[in-house]
């Protein structure tokens, strides 16, 4: 029992590291988004998708290095050929290009005031899917905790609406919903695959799939590779490998956490990235710590404690006879 609990508690630590590093990843990537190269109005869709493609491609490369250094490269080959990798590949499509492209389209058509709160619901969506498809045990207290984490994330990320709603508003909302379901279902599909696969190798499969689809399908559809070389060779070129390394670490911890402590707990703790992102922004940039941020932080912390709850519940994650 003690051994099992220590395993699950290590999963919680991984989930927390994944939230912290994802927050840092966002702050580093924001340096790229602030570059004049990516700010052109005509690149509203191509710029974030190019950043996504570069991020996931470098991330796949760093994971190849990690798996090579830890003697897992042959395991990667075996995993890519196995049936158990299919849900991971499907999850990569949903959580990578599909969710990211939908999120960007949602922001464009409906604006951040509506899209951010909708997409912040992804841990709740994932927990519902995990309870239904993986039979994951989620206590009533943990559902409340999860709700608090989502509310805290919404308070921190809230942006007031600007101007009137255009004709494309409802299309934007639909895209936001697709992004929310995409991110939510990725966690469940990946966790299902990781039942029989090593998390570090499964993640490498995820990033290889995501980067391939970005490079071969999404970017050509979104306008091509016009920004690809200028982004890499310009003054912001360093941002992509550095952010991707932070992102790879974050994803690695997130995937391990979902495998070790369950989707709902890992997701609820991972969503604290909004809080960590603001803390890093306050340290490295000129973002002010407002009352809303402090309120959001307190709510997220309370929610996290409620989700983690009684450690003994973590010894067996699923309701399986």
């Amino acid at each position, binding site marked *: 029992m003690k051994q099992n609990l220590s395993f699950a508690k290590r999963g919680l630590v991984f989930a927390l590291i994944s939230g912290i590093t994802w927050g840092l990843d966002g702050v580093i990537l924001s340096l790229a988004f602030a570059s004049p190269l990516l700010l052109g109005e005509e690149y509203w869709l191509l710029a974030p998708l190019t950043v996504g493609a570069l991020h996931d491609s470098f991330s796949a490369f760093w994971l190849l290095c990690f798996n090579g250094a830890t*003697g897992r490269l*042959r395991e990667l080959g075996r995993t890519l050929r196995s049936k158990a990798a299919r849900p991971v590949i499907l999850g990569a499509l949903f959580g990578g290009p599909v969710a990211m492209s939908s999120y960007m389209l949602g922001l464009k058509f409906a604006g951040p005031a509506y899209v951010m709160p909708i997409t912040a619901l992804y841990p709740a969506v994932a927990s519902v899917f995990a309870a239904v498809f993986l039979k994951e045990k989620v206590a009533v207290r943990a559902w409340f905790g999860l709700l608090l984490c989502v509310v805290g994330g919404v308070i921190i990320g809230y942006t007031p609406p600007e101007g009137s709603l255009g004709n494309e508003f409802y299309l934007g909302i639909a895209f936001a919903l697709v992004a929310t379901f995409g991110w939510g279902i990725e966690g469940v599909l990946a966790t299902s695959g990781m039942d*029989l696969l*090593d998390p570090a*190798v499964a993640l490498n499969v995820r990033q290889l799939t995501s980067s391939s689809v970005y490079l071969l399908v999404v970017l050509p559809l979104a306008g091509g590779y016009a920004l690809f070389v200028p982004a890499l060779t310009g003054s912001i070129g360093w941002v992509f490998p550095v952010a991707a390394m932070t992102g790879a670490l974050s994803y690695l911890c997130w995937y391990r956490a979902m495998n070790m402590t369950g989707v709902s707990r890992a997701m609820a703790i991972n969503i604290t990235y909004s809080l960590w992102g603001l803390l890093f922004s306050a340290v490295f940039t000129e973002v002010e710590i407002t009352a809303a941020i402090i309120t959001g932080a307190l709510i997220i912390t309370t929610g996290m404690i409620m989700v983690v709850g009684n450690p003994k519940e973590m010894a067996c*994650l699923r309701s399986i006879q």
Partner: protein
Amino acid sequence: MTNIPMKMRVADCFGQGEALNARAVHDIICDQYPTERYCSVRSVHEHLMSLKAVGILNDESSYVDDNGDLVSVYRISEYGLNRLHKAR
């Protein structure tokens, strides 16, 4: 040599209903992953804990070995058998 991912092969060792610990599983599979650093007792132990957490394996018993280390013995669950069957 085998083309089966190691974690799946670890679970597969329990397919006939045997109760096994990490070292016994490692002894069964090590010839199938020759010269691979990844195939270690430690990796097998980590996979067993993960398989236990998601309900594929159940704790059968545990004991303290001659070195004073706690050794867990696992057996596959009904769910684990179904899961393996679907993954093959």
